[in-house]
């Protein structure tokens, strides 16, 4: 088959190649996928990254241990608190600093609120990607309520930079407890609405069930983490296995599913939202009094050595690897971002599916491209 300008639009093997992205509504940012198609069926995918590679790792090498945290808010901007927490924890590990209990609890509450709003945004965008526009607006309604809490707490809606080495930057607003409780009541009432509009929908079930299968072995081999891996039955919740902050003080379930398909990933996230609400409710009445920040020196210098901290972001395992040579800024920083490894499993998940399936898979992996590119 020949195109109008005489150029072959099919390859010699009869494949039809399309480029999805960098600007494409369903790639959630600027991801470029080169797709080999046979009709509508995806034969091969090649992700092409780097359209938002902002050299955060290089930049951090010249920033002090207090300053480098801000860039991580821009990495996974839907989980800025969690990213900041990971960096703060790594620095604290290097300094062998004990964080006050109050800061730990507040960190945990904020992390779970972050997870909740991230999952809500994911839910809305999944609806959007599958062609149903309305869920997006329902999700954002509750998300805005959480955003208001963030804003009241630290003045920023998205890129908070609130967790600092030693604890949190400032104490929470006096309204904090009341507002969080109000929002939790609001959100708990809305889960049923979410289920009504999306989960029970027969079209949605058909679009997601049996699509984008990822086996447990593949998930492990590709380093897939977070809800994506847990939907394949791979237990990898770091909040359970390597508890940090105040996660050892709360009761919650690690959500596992064995489906391995898009629907399982969808359900895992839906159920995780309820767990997050439960964690917040356990902690919100028990914020201990006391300091919110441990005393640190003005210029933090980490001892010579290597420090690694893993935390569970809404998308999976974030690893912060700091190599210190004893100076006031890190010698090398490596962020092991969850999306990066999760994306690497996309080609095997999407193989053999339709273009519509590919969109559904990308939606349920929950990609955040700046988190992948860094």
């Amino acid at each position, binding site marked *: 088959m020949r195109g109008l300008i005489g150029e072959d639009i099919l390859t010699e093997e009869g494949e039809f190649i399309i480029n999805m992205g960098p600007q494409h509504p369903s790639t959630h940012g600027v991801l470029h996928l080169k797709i080999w198609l046979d009709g509508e069926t995806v034969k091969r995918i090649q992700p092409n990254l780097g359209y938002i590679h902002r050299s955060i790792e290089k930049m951090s090498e010249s920033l002090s241990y207090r300053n480098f945290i801000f860039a991580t808010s821009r990495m996974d901007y839907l989980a800025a608190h969690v990213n900041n927490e990971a960096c703060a924890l790594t620095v604290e590990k290097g300094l062998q600093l004990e964080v006050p209990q109050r800061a730990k609890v507040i960190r945990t509450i904020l992390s779970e609120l972050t997870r909740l709003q991230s999952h809500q945004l994911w839910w809305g965008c999944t609806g959007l990607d599958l062609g149903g526009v309305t869920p997006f607006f329902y999700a954002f309604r509750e998300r805005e309520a959480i955003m208001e809490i963030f804003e009241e707490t630290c003045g920023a809606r998205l890129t908070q930079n609130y967790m600092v080495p030693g604890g949190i930057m400032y104490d929470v607003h006096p309204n904090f407890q009341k507002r969080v409780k109000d929002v939790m009541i609001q959100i708990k009432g809305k889960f049923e609405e979410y289920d009504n509009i999306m989960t029970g929908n027969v079209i949605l079930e058909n679009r997601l069930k049996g699509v984008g299968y990822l086996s447990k072995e593949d998930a492990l081999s590709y380093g897939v983490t977070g809800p994506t891996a847990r939907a394949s039955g791979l237990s990898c919740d770091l909040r359970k296995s390597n508890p940090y902050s105040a996660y050892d003080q709360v009761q919650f379930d690690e959500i596992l599913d064995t489906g391995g398909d898009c629907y399982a990933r969808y359900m895992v996230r839906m159920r995780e939202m309820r767990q997050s609400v439960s964690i917040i409710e356990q902690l919100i009445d028990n914020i201990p009094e006391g300091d919110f920040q441990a005393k640190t020196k003005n210029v933090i210098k980490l001892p010579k050595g290597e420090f690694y901290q893993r935390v569970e972001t809404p998308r999976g395992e974030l690893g912060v690897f700091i190599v210190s040579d004893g100076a006031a800024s890190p010698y090398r920083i490596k962020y092991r971002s969850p999306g*990066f490894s999760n994306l690497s499993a996309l080609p095997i998940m999407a193989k053999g599916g339709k273009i519509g399936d590919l969109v559904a898979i990308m939606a349920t992996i929950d990609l955040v491209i700046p988190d992948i590119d860094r």
Partner: protein
Amino acid sequence: MSTEELKNSITAILPSSTFDETGEFLNVVITSEELLPLMNTLRTKSEFDFDFLFCLTCIDWKDHLMMVYHLLSKTHQHTLVIKAKIADRNNAQIETVCNIWRTAEFHEREVFDLFGVKFINHPDLRRLFLSDDWVGHPLRKDYTDENMISL
């Protein structure tokens, strides 16, 4: 396996390896040529069973490059860090581990892109983040760029 047992077992396999226990994890320092056999053993032998490579990166120590592999076993819940020293900075190359852990494919491409380490037998070794015509490897300490404004 505890740290001590790990140490003993690895010494039995690879007597030339040195250990560093200052950090959180047990670090094993080897040379780049010893990497692939050791990694294969660590993955396949059931007493190790390191099935999860959770981080793969490189550090530029100015006179040499150091590949760092963070390994975890989901079955035994033990962690190990393998450090492979690449002495030749100008012609840095090491065997790929992406046949053992698939996740290494992307991570190695990232290291190739940003550090210029060539991975032997890698299936698709291209630049990952930067465009193909980029000159240099930015995360090396001696990288200079006229567009880079230093504070």
